[in-house]
């Protein structure tokens, strides 16, 4: 199918983007890399009146390290994040996850911020941001505000972004020295959306366990986090993988299957990270 008709505006600065959006009205959409938006428009899942192309705003691009925080400009393309030395050195979770984001031709256009702002429940980057405890920098008509990842992902494709607000950057704390990370996902084909996916951060005595592709958003597995922090064995943590979480089946896997996959991924990654393997199970 083809998209419905819309107007197209290209913004060269954040101010210009906000002005254009104010004029175009609530039915305008931001266009970043377009790798999800264009598919949705081709299916006519959405029929916006205007697209405001923000992908060429230089201030929204690039990866920088400032003290203990990495800032990823929202319009930085996946392919750039994948090869960025700051990301490789300081945020290995994202470096490891990036090859799982779609396919090379899509990573060439798709942006980090576009993926986070879209909040596809099965996407890797929102889950990484949540596991790393990132903070979103949002710009809007009323200025800049910051929202923590824990408060940003609200539901299926639903975030704390208000109409007319734009995700400018994501700030990610560099994990403490000695922190360990795990990433794993199950998909039918390399680069497809995950049937179940896991981001895991272990730092000092604390754990963050995030699943994606299971629920209506990336979700923290609080019961599993508490069990890890209490020193439980991988097998026992895995038994709590989806405890208390709403899990929804889809075309690729039914709900009980997804719960099973989640437990398997968590156990495997914990065993790999801790060297603890319980053969008796």
């Amino acid at each position, binding site marked *: 199918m083809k998209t419905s008709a819309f107007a197209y505006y290209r913004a060269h600065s954040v101010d210009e983007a906000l002005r254009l959006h104010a004029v175009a009205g609530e039915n305008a959409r931001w*266009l970043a890399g*377009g790798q999800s938006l264009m598919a949705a428009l081709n299916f006519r899942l959405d029929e916006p009146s205007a697209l405001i192309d923000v992908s060429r705003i230089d201030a929204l691009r690039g990866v920088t390290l400032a003290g203990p925080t990495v800032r990823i400009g929202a319009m930085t393309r996946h392919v750039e994040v994948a090869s960025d030395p700051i990301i490789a050195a300081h945020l290995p979770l994202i470096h490891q996850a990036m090859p799982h984001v779609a396919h090379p031709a899509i990573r060439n*256009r798709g942006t980090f911020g576009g993926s986070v702002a879209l909040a596809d429940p099965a996407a890797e980057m929102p889950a990484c941001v949540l596991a790393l405890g990132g903070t979103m920098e949002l710009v809007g008509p009323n200025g800049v505000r910051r929202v923590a990842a824990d408060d940003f992902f609200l539901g299926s494709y639903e975030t704390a972004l208000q109409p007319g607000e734009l995700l400018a950057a994501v700030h990610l704390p560099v994990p403490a020295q000695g922190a360990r990370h795990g990433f794993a996902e199950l998909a039918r084909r390399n680069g497809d959306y995950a049937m179940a996916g896991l981001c895991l951060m272990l730092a000092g005595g604390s754990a963050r366990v995030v699943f994606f592709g299971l629920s209506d958003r990336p979700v923290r597995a609080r019961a599993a986090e508490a069990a890890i922090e209490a020193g439980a064995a991988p097998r026992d943590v895995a038994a709590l993988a989806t405890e208390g979480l709403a899990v929804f089946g889809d075309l690729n896997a039914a709900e009980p299957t997804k719960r099973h996959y989640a437990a398997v991924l968590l156990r495997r990654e914990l065993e790999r990270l801790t060297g603890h393997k319980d053969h008796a199970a």
Partner: protein
Amino acid sequence: MSGLITITLRLNGEDVTATVPARESLVDFLRERMGLTGAHVGCAHGVCGACTVRVDGQSVRGCLTLAAQVDGAEVETVEGLSDTGAIADLQEAFHRHNALQCGYCTPGMLVTVAELLDQGGPVPTRAAIREHISGNYCRCTGYQAVVDAVHEVATTRAAQRGEPA
């Protein structure tokens, strides 16, 4: 507010200016307006890879890119890559290995593979080749012959560069 936009781009080495509807995808622009029908529209939502072309040297989905977005860019299609001889060895290897049957996926496959081969370095493993073409569906060949052809060209080119096999 206008539904039309004028774009200027370099297309297969030639400067082109055109006024297009804002909603026109790059692949429709190339096929319907420029007569370049090598890139195909298989799915129109980013899954099959049949629409793959090059923008500023990188492979992209023609169905997920607006013509409006390539204003000022350098666009190459399979026609351009063929005419310059840049992928002649690859085309010949596809032919010889039977890496195409109906040929529907082939233009997208060639553009995608050309990007991998252009990266240079050591010869990619078969697994790396499969990973790189994971976004290109082929319903005929079963991929085996495609991987054979790509691996052979990668090996030949690496030898020409003096890389160890």
